[in-house]
């Protein structure tokens, strides 16, 4: 009895901050809240509508493309930076500190900075293109460039995070296998491929998982930079949920979207974790 009593405050707190809101959202997803009529239970109708909602499917596709591209590029760049900066050298502290600046800026501020950079009339990108090619570049109003532009912002902001985690991982690897490989005449490329990467696998898994989950729920930059436009080119799932709930007041439908996204993200993390565990065995 005593152990149960001791654990009760934590359990109640955990229930209050996680399970209850989640349960409420599930309940809300089974209802509709028409503003001019009382709320009504609609069963799985919202989920059924979701399956036929081409806009939501489109937003999931955009989110997936954003997540895979941003996380993939951030991983490669982060790894390259970590390998380059793992050794001791002068100015190392300054360079490392400078590299992590984007990560500590609030996402909304990042959005504003890049909105100015992408500005067609006075932005840096437009200026460079104008100087080089004599034509203006409307990055955020181009259906082909807007999403890559958002991915670039995410890469700029979050590559330092990938770099920090991978650097910590590399520096914590035992040195003996590397020394033995060098004595045996292994090339740097072979050492990287057959020692560094396999030994770094758990760290890579964590880094990729954290970044992918974060990228999957991107909102701030999209909200500030494009509002999902031009057209629906950058309409990510979280923005659609936000609009459905708070602009269109379709709270039940928005809740079903949120639950669907939650299941998707939970399934993805379970899959990634299992895949890395199986490979490590």
């Amino acid at each position, binding site marked *: 009895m005593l152990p149960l009593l001791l654990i009760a405050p934590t359990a109640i707190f955990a229930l209050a901050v996680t399970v209850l809101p*989640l349960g409420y959202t599930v309940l809300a997803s089974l209802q509709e809240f*028409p503003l001019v009529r009382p709320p009504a239970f609609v069963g799985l109708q919202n989920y059924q509508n979701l399956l036929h909602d081409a806009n939501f499917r489109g937003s999931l596709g955009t989110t997936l493309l954003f997540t895979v591209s941003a996380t993939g590029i951030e991983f490669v760049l982060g790894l390259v930076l970590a390998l380059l900066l793992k050794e001791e050298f002068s100015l190392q502290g300054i360079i490392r500190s400078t590299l992590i600046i984007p990560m500590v800026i609030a996402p909304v501020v990042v959005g504003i900075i890049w909105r100015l950079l992408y500005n067609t009339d006075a932005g840096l990108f437009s200026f460079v293109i104008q100087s080089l090619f004599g034509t203006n570049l*409307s990055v955020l109003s181009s259906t082909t460039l807007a999403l890559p532009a958002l991915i670039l912002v995410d890469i700029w902001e979050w590559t330092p995070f990938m770099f920090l985690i991978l650097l910590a991982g590399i520096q914590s690897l035992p040195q003996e296998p590397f020394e033995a490989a060098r004595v045996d005449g292994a090339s740097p490329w072979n050492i990287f491929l057959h020692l560094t990467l396999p030994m770094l696998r758990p760290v890579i898994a964590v880094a990729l998982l954290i970044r992918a989950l974060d990228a999957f729920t991107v909102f701030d930059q999209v909200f500030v930079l*494009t509002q999902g*436009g031009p057209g629906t080119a950058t309409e990510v799932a979280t923005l659609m949920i936000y609009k459905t709930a708070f602009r*269109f007041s379709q709270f039940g439908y928005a*809740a079903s979207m949120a639950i669907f996204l939650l299941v998707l993200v939970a399934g993805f993390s379970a899959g990634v974790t299992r895949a890395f565990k199986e490979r490590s065995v």
Partner: protein
Amino acid sequence: MALAGAVAAVQSLPGCGRSRSPLQRGRITFGSFADPALDVLKEVLLPEFEKATGIPTEWVEADFSGWLQKALSDGQTKAGSFDIYVLDDLWVPRFAGAGYLANLDEMGFHTDQDFVPTALDLGYWPPKVGLRQPGLDPKAKPALFSLPLISDLQLLFYRNDIYSSGPPASWDEVLEMARQKSDPSKRQYGWVSRGVKGNPVVNSYFVLLHDFGGKIFGEDWKVVFNSPQAIESLEFYLNLLSYAPEGVAEFDSDQEGETLLQGNAFAATMWTGWCGQTDDPTKSRVVGKIDFAVPPKKINQIAKLGLFMAGIAASAPNKAEALEFLRWFSSSPTQLKFARAGGTPFKISAFNDAEARKKSRWLDAIFKALLLGVPSPRTSDWSKIEDILGTELNKALIERGGAKEHLDAAAAEATAFLKSAGYPAG
């Protein structure tokens, strides 16, 4: 979870659980979006109200979207965090329809003949004229749920050095002037507009749609914004935008206003909140060169309304004090003071005051435009329709063409949505 969190967050807002002794007058808590147009009210009128009545006030504000979230959550949970909601007029159907606002008629508020009728009508639910949302009692008498707070609408801002013989009377004149005098190499553009998807581009297009004889809805909520008149109006808009800056499809209000104030555009339809900045040398390079008029005419001549409204929260802990404020603020003498201090009133006598007109030279244009004003359709689902239409308009702007295809696509999607929401649209 975020939705549940939003509801929970309301509990932590200022004013929650306020209590007072029977002798004290309750503090009125205003909840609002941030907007410079509210400055005169906050800085000049509220202190006067406090002095005159002894009722303290508190102003809590957030950005436009953030405030809408907070207000909806407050209304839904009946948290009582606010006494007066400051609302965009297009929110009135949502808030009044959902029962988040107190009925001012039942509270004993009486209107008078000095109100500008088009402004006052926005506060009624169900609407006094026009279509009624399904689910509403067709025989229900319109009741007053909110009052105008700031008369905001879209005026024609035009350069008086370019249009030297006065404001353009017709849209064709605007196009002709743009054609003659635009020079992109010198960053001189005949027109500037908001093109961002959703509300901004719809608001910019709304005036043209109506002026060309088009409408959003026909009888029984039939979507008609793809009618021949509507297609013609969008084709005209796209034509006009070929004399606008590159990238106008990504412009919101800030970039539109900036382009005009920097002297790079000859004309635009903009919210009246920008009027004051045109004469401010710290913000404008064309001080004294911008005049104001009702937007030009084609078949019709209208102005898009977007008034700031004020309603008493149904869950307000200080309803009596809030009502006292609304009575005081909407009285003709206070409206006169408000106009003379630089505010935009909603009473006819205040608009006609010579001193007020001298202080704010745009008041005459606002008054004329107000009388021709058309609001967003009165339905709580307008934001969804606006999003659908705004997305396709934005696509048309990017492609600089395809007016019929995009309006047809928007009409089909809007019709499907309306049907699913119980409208008789067909």
